[in-house]
């Protein structure tokens, strides 16, 4: 903060400086103007003097010499820096004057024109004044000039330096200014001193005093002896400080009291907040209260079922506690406080409340009871007592009321906490029960675990779960105190009718609680693990409206009377229902799965078998194809060989014969004829050979005459070539089949007879064709060695002939069966459709690659 003193000083000093500067400036300016005017006046005077002197001389007709003398004398005065006279033009012309005396500058020329010219110029800070004055002819002088009187005949030019004159004047002025400034300065300083002494210092003293008081130095006093308003002000100030000092002491005392109360309340609040155990917090609160209020005895009572019960006390005799342990609400002072919710203060019990016998008996004269309120509800009373009358006042009452509110909050909090904790515990147990459900699919395990968990929430002596099975209840899970040996009950079957209570629960489908000390437990006669129970809770296991079983818990020696137990038990019962449901579904799914697996396995096996069959067939087909190709190649080789061996050699032979005939034709015609004869014979042979080969390639008779003639021809040839006798018989009306079918049957018979010739070691074969309206049946028998049909057919490598026969039969929609046994010959039975309608039944000739 800026102090007042420099401000005042600055203000006064500033004003003073302005005035001083104004005075000095004024003096200086007026002095300077005066100097200037005086200087000019002096110069004017000098110039006039020189002019007059010269004029006088000229008027007297002093001539040039006279003039010169005057000028010289003027110059000698030293007043003029320069002084000269310049002649006018006519004079110059006339007298032939020297050039330097001719007019020189502009001023002189102006003066010659008749003007008086003055010029002031500065040099070195001082003025130099120059005058140029025209000189007019005063005397007629024919000798000197021809000018008329009054005509300008020259100028006088003077230059006067004002240095010496002005410097003197200035010195004088400066001395005056210095004197004036010094005087003013001294005056100013004196003013400052007085100001400081008379005003500033007392003000500072007062200010310091105020500061001291503000800083708490209430005993500070001011010493001002100025005798003016400031002294009055200081006096008033001192009075005020004294008053302030007094009131401060009182205030401080009050603050200390309030602080103590607040600390106590704070401690109460802290104690209340520190713990959720009322047994801990309430004594502490009581201690604080007693320390604060100073009562001899105190207690805290809590309302339980309309009665005030002492929870904690201090300074009270056991006798008092014994007598006053339970006070009904509305009774005595404490009861009234609890009833009305207002503090009850008795300043003198003797006088005011003679009915408060208990307190009076304990020797108390005054008492204070405040209600403990939580959420607008009375929950208890804090009670103070003293052996002195008038021991309590309104303040203490107010404080105690505040404490009462804290305690009320604490009690409420504890109640809330306990409620919340028990709910959380139940929730946790139920959550674990759910986990149990999902953890196992074994019904008995789940039920057992459920019971175990129920036992953690509901402290019971025994519990069991029974499942409905027909008209019986089966004990599925048990749990109980070890000495009850509940596990003996497991699996026990109780007829529904045997137990009245269970039957009732099942019929009514609702929870029933039995509280009946000394009651027989609800089990079948003859099986009594528990002699008697006080309390029993039976919950139906309901799925929809169906009762699946029962959950029963029992207590041996007391009853639960709250609503929670049935609810908790029902929650567990729901879990049990879910477990049963899960187990049932699981069992169903398991059965379904097993069925499905069995079916899949069956299918897989079938597929595998089919695949094997297919693989075997494919293998046979591959071999067949290979063999077919090989046969084709061999056939081609054979044909080529046939042609080479038979045809081309025959042709060669014939050629040689004809050549021989040609050679001998001229000389020995008969020889030639013989040769040609030979050639002809060879050619005949050639024709036969050709026919044989062609017939082998394609039996023309088959397409022209049909199956029967073709087979007749071929069998005849077969018998000749193989030496196997073959009987060929036909029954039914012979008719033509489609070309494909005829060709297939022809080849099948060929193959079969080839096999007989090659493998059967047979002597006799029988081929029989039986035509029926629908089919043609072909039977080929032999008396050969026979073979193990299955072994041969399964061995796909060696008996492609059989397979290819079968393929051929199938390709035309027919069937082929082989009957054979080692030592008993072989029968091959072929049945093919013989009418045109059944053409489409077979695969047709298109898909027969071997035909």
């Amino acid at each position: 903060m800026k102090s007042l003193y420099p401000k005042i000083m600055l203000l006064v000093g500033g004003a003073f400086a302005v005035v001083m500067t104004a005075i000095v400036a004024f003096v200086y300016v007026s002095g300077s103007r005066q100097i200037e005017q005086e200087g000019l006046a002096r110069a004017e005077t000098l110039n006039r003097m020189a002019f007059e002197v010269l004029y006088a001389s000229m008027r007297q007709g002093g001539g040039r010499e006279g003039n010169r003398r005057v000028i010289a004398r003027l110059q000698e005065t030293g007043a003029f820096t320069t002084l000269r006279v310049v002649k006018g033009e006519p004079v110059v012309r006339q007298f032939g004057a020297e050039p330097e005396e001719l007019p020189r500058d502009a001023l002189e020329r102006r003066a010659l024109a008749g003007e008086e010219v003055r010029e002031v110029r500065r040099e070195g800070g001082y003025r130099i004044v120059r005058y140029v004055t025209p000189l007019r002819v005063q005397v007629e002088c024919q000798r000197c000039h021809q000018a008329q009187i009054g005509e300008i005949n020259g100028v006088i030019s003077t230059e006067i330096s004002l240095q010496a004159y002005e410097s003197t004047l200035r010195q004088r002025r400066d001395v005056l200014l210095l004197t004036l400034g010094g005087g003013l300065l001294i005056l100013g300083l004196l003013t400052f001193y007085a100001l400081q002494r008379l005003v500033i210092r007392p003000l500072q003293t007062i200010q310091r005093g105020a500061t001291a008081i503000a800083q708490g130095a209430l005993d500070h006093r001011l010493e001002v002896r100025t005798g003016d308003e400031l002294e009055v002000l200081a006096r008033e100030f001192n009075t005020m400080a004294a008053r302030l000092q007094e009131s401060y002491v009182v205030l401080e005392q009050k603050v200390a009291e309030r602080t103590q109360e607040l600390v106590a309340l704070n401690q109460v609040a802290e104690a209340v907040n520190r713990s959720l155990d009322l047994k801990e917090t309430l004594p502490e609160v009581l201690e604080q209260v007693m320390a604060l209020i100073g009562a001899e005895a105190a207690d805290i009572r809590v309302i339980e079922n309309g009665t005030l019960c002492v929870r904690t006390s201090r300074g009270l005799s056991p006798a008092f506690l014994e007598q006053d342990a339970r006070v009904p609400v509305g009774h005595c002072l404490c009861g009234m406080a609890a009833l009305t919710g207002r503090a009850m203060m008795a300043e003198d019990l003797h006088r005011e409340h003679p009915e408060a016998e208990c307190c009076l008996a304990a020797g108390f004269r005054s008492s204070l009871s405040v209600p403990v309120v939580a959420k607008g509800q009375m929950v208890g009373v804090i009670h103070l007592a003293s052996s002195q009358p008038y021991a309590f006042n309104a303040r203490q009452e107010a404080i105690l009321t505040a404490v009462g509110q804290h305690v009320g909050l604490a009690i409420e909090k504890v109640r809330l906490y306990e409620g919340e904790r028990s709910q959380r515990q139940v929730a946790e147990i139920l959550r674990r029960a759910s986990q149990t459900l999902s953890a196992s699919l074994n019904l008995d395990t789940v039920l057992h675990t459920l019971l175990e968990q129920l036992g953690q929430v509901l402290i019971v002596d025994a519990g069991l779960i029974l499942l409905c099975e027909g008209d019986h209840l089966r004990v599925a899970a048990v749990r109980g105190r070890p000495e009850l040996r509940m596990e003996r009950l497991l699996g026990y079957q109780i007829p529904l009718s045997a137990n009245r209570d269970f039957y009732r629960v099942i019929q009514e489908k609702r929870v029933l609680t039995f509280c009946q000390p000394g009651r027989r437990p609800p089990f079948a006669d003859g099986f009594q693990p528990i002699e008697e129970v006080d309390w029993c809770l039976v919950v139906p296991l309901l799925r929809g409206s169906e009762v699946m079983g029962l959950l029963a818990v029992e207590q041996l020696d007391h009853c639960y009377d709250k609503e929670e137990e049935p609810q908790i038990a029902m929650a567990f019962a729901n879990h049990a229902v879910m477990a049963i449901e899960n187990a049932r579904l699981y069992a169903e799914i398991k059965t379904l799965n097993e069925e499905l697996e069995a079916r899949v396995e069956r299918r897989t096996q079938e597929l595998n078998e089919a695949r094997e069959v297919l693989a075997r067939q494919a293998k046979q087909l591959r071999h067949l194809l290979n063999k077919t190709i090989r046969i084709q190649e061999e056939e081609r080789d054979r044909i080529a060989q046939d042609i080479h061996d038979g045809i081309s050699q025959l042709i060669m032979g014939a050629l040689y014969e004809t050549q021989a005939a040609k050679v001998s034709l001229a000389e020995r015609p008969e020889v030639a004829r013989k040769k040609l004869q030979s050639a002809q014979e060879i050619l005949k042979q050639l024709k036969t050979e050709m026919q044989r080969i062609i017939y082998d390639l394609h039996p023309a008779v088959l397409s022209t005459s049909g199956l029967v003639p073709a087979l007749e021809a071929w069998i005849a040839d077969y018998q000749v070539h193989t030496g196997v006798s073959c009987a060929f018989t036909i029954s039914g009306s012979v008719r033509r089949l489609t070309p494909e079918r005829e060709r297939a049957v022809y080849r099948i018979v060929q193959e079969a007879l080839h096999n007989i010739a090659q493998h059967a070691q047979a002597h006799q074969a029988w081929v029989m064709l039986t035509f029926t309206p629908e089919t043609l049946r072909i039977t080929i028998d032999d008396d050969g060695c026979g073979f193990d049909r299955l072994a041969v057919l399964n061995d796909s490598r060696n008996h492609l002939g059989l397979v290819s026969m079968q393929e051929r039969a199938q390709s035309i929609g027919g069937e082929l069966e082989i009957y054979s046994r080692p030592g008993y010959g072989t029968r091959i039975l072929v049945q093919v459709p013989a009418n045109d309608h059944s053409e489409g039944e077979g695969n047709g000739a298109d898909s027969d690659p071997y035909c």
Partner: protein
Amino acid sequence: MERIRILIADDHPIVRQGIRSLLTQYDDLEVVGEAGTGPAVLQQAARLKPDVILLDVRMTGANGIEIARQLRREHPEIRIIILTTYDDEKYLYGALQVGAQAYLLKDVSLETLPAAIRAVYQGERLLSPLLVDKVLREFQSLAIEKLRRDAGLSEEELRILRAMAEGANNKEIAEEFFWSEVTVKKKVQEILVKLNAENRTQAVAQAIRQGLI
């Protein structure tokens, strides 16, 4: 007049009969025997000592060329005419190699057979005109092969030379043989050295002159 004694070896009786029937028309030819199998041929040859054997290359149980080889070894004085329906090169070169005097195709030598027998008997060697081309082509390749060996050129180098003769530059050769140009350049240089040539043109000229290409 001395007659040329002939043994006919063919596994087909009708062909044998035909040949005999033809040859008996000529007075200077005498068929002294026939044989249908390989062993029979050797046996008859040893017994009858014919001047000429007409031998089929394919005989039952034997290869005509093999029989010819044995005949040449055991009876070098007997002239052998291979008479066959096959113009297979294998038989042809085999026959020439074992030193048969003639190789004739049955169907084309009907009229010339007697003359052929006489010529062979006189010590000439004969070949059916149809076969001459084959033999000559074989000879040509053998000849070039020999020249190549003489010049010390590899077959690869010969191929390069041919490409050079067709006017291919190194780049084209490289593309044709799937080599790099550097490799081609190196190989060409080697060829120049082997042919004692100054440049490519000279090398090609040299190769043509020597008949390499």
